[in-house]
């Protein structure tokens, strides 16, 4: 009989790592724990890199927290950045839940901003219209714009099986250039690449607007969009976890053949989910122009649409978890403006994504340390 001897090791430590496939169910707390762990490890690695290049990690980290959560004023700034991120992150969550890889949130964001601007710029309302008509109309238009930009790839996928990754990515550029066309040309404000400022009725109420009654609120730019975003998170959670449509999305995402067998109209759901996903990103675009910039202009998004992808994954496609994750990423954006080196924020974002993706390994495998016998 031929039996090969047990493999010999050149050197050996007294302990060894054993990696096993998980046979039992993954514990409920583990996905959240890996997300939090990913963030902590990302900060640790960034700290080591800072140290290596001669910085003082602890000082920088303390400054990071001061600049983002240190006072009510900076918390307001952080939440302003978190607002579009929540909405875009929700849009990605909805699509990813059905395994539709919508990476076109950036374009949907711009189309949402464009359509919402139409209310003021066409104009669709009279100049003295009240806030109560203008804002809801802008929200609806923003969602229509985003939904339209989701419909195109959705329809192409449902009808002709065109890969949505390609179409959504390409449509990002179309949307940005479409926006540019109008602000460079027809709607340009005295030759600048921006439209004239919107009338006050098209502004989402901000905290600073109430500074006269409550002086402490002075300078705080946090706007109503944050409440809209949180409300949207609750609605998306309800749809995904409690509604019939959410069940169909979940089933189709897990096994398309089984969904077809269960009588679900997959083509229709592809289009609807892409539209819903786009509408959320479009609402983010509306909230940004109506709550922050108050006009349509170039570069209204520093890549919110792409950050939304990372957020959806870090939140493990849980709509409620999207909120704290977005606040973290909002903080990273705020910190990026305040901290030297400025690249630290992007560095952290990158490491976080890397950690989240690799930590999925822990959900499927068990690692334990054993004494070498």
């Amino acid at each position: 009989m031929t039996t090969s001897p047990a493999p010999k090791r050149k050197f050996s430590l007294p302990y060894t790592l054993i990696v096993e496939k998980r046979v039992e169910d993954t514990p409920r707390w583990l996905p959240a724990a890996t997300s939090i762990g990913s963030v902590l490890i990302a900060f640790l690695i960034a700290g080591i890199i800072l140290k290596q290049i001669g910085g003082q990690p602890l000082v920088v980290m303390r400054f990071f927290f001061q600049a983002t959560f240190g006072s009510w004023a900076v918390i307001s700034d952080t939440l302003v950045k978190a607002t579009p991120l929540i909405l875009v992150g929700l849009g990605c969550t909805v699509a990813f839940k059905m395994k539709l890889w919508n990476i076109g949130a950036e374009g949907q964001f711009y189309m949402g901003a464009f359509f919402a601007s139409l209310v003021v710029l066409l104009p669709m309302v009279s100049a003295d219209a009240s806030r109560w008509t203008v804002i809801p109309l802008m929200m609806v238009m923003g969602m229509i714009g985003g939904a339209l930009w989701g419909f195109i790839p959705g329809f192409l996928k449902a009808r002709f099986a065109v890969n949505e990754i390609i179409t959504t990515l390409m449509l990002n550029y179309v949307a940005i250039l479409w926006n540019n066309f109008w602000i460079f040309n027809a709607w340009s404000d005295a030759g600048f690449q921006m439209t004239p400022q919107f009338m006050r009725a098209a502004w989402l109420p901000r905290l600073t607007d109430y500074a006269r009654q409550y002086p402490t609120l002075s300078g705080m730019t946090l706007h109503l969009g944050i409440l809209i975003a949180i409300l949207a998170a609750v609605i998306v959670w309800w749809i995904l976890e409690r509604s019939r449509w959410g069940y169909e999305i979940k089933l189709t995402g897990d096994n398309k053949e089984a969904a077809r067998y269960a009588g679900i109209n997959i083509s229709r759901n592809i289009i609807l989910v892409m539209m819903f996903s786009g509408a959320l990103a479009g609402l983010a675009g509306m909230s940004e122009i109506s709550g922050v910039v108050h006009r349509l202009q170039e570069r209204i998004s520093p890549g919110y649409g792409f950050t939304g992808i990372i957020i959806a994954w870090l939140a493990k496609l849980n709509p409620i978890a999207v909120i704290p994750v977005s606040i973290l990423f909002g903080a990273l954006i705020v910190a990026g403006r305040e901290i030297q080196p400025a690249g630290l924020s992007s560095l952290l974002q990158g490491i976080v994504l890397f950690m989240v993706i690799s930590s999925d390994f822990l959900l499927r495998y068990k690692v334990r340390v054993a004494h070498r016998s």
Partner: protein
Amino acid sequence: MPETPYAVEMENIVVRFPGVLANNQVNLKLKQGEIHALLGENGAGKSTLMNVLAGLYRPTSGTLKVYGAPVTFHSPKDAIARGIGMVHQHFMLAPTLTVTENILLGLNRPRFRLNLKQFDEEIVALQEQYGLRVDPRAKIWQLSVGEQQRVEILKTLYRGASILILDEPTAVLAPAEIEEFMHTMRTMVAQGKSIIFISHKLQEVTAVADRITVLRKGQVTAEGQSIEGMTREKLAQLMVGRGIVFSVYKEAQEPGEVVLSLQDVHAENDKGLPALRGVSLAVRSGEILGIAGVAGNGQSELAEVITGLRPCTGHIIINGEELGNRPPITAIRQGVSHIPEDRTHVGSAPNLSITDNTMMKSYRQTPISQGWRINYTVAHDTAVKLKSAYDILAPSVDTLARKLSGGNLQKVILAREISAQPQLMVAVQPTRGLDVGAIEAIQTLLLEQRKAGTAVLLISEELEELFALSDRIAVISEGRIMGIMDADAADVNQIGMMMTGGKEM
């Protein structure tokens, strides 16, 4: 170290999963040069035990010896290094690579330059030795299932396996291939290999095994008994713990009105070739119409056109409503239940819970659906009821479908499809790959449906099953119905003739 007659000795193996004792003090001793059959119902712990031997799981306690030497496996690599190779039920081959490339995959050789020709020759030599013929240059996707299985076995042999674990190897084979496969097993044993053979088919076990070990609910009920004097009935008794009725009792019953009728139905298969060429038949309420045929003669397509999963021409009428070329939802609304051929890829959602899987068709109806809302409390309670009514073995209804054994998953599907109280039940290979206990349970459920007045279309490759359950048997060959006859009056030889395309006598 004393010479030992045993290739493998597993002693007092205990494997505990949360909530389940999968193996409880299990002993298994494999002699050198024997075929040792491992029997047991689905979920009896056979796969767990073999995964321990193959290094995939670690036992909670117990000892493992290979050729007399105690071993601890940390990974499948360690097991392979000790000469243990496992051929899984689901093949793990790369379809676009050649046979040789697949065999070399994952090995450390060649170190750098791949001289395929040299390896082709090595593999041909290995094939000659064991009678496992398959063209080394062929791509995997070009091979039949039987040939692919040979590649899997060659893969383990090439890695120097002297102890082979074959997990239900015959489940995927056609009858002629099974004959050849049993011959291969005997050749391998004659050349000094030792084989553990897992099977549900008791005839095969009695034909090929030297000794058997039987598991029931994680415990050994027969340890290394000689196959001499074993009968099918005795084996079934050991597996299930009670007598098994091999032919379920079918009560005489007058069928009612015609529920389903097909008129001149044509359809194409996935490759765009004609699969159904003018099928006409009718099924009445309280009747089981069996469809006999060699695999791939249009049976799958027949089930799919009725359930709306495949386009067709011609008429499919259920209770006066046209079903042909309608989306699947139409069939579901008309009370058509479907037990699909592929229970993992079509019949269930692997990463969703038992609850989610049992409501796949009822989520649109009250009480689970309340307008746009799904009442998950009701869904959960319904699933709990189904779980106990259909005897589904799982820690809870929150267990994911992919954690279930084949028999339990099939029970989930049956629970869902039967609880819809269908007018028509389309059952495709409902008992394939299941153990005797589960087969009996599922056949009994189908007969209960017949009694309840459901029209049942039963598509099966097991003639024995068709004869036991059907009122009438239709034979399909190359997409045509060759003839329909009463099951009582039908003759096996005649059906066999018609299955291969012969004319009705």
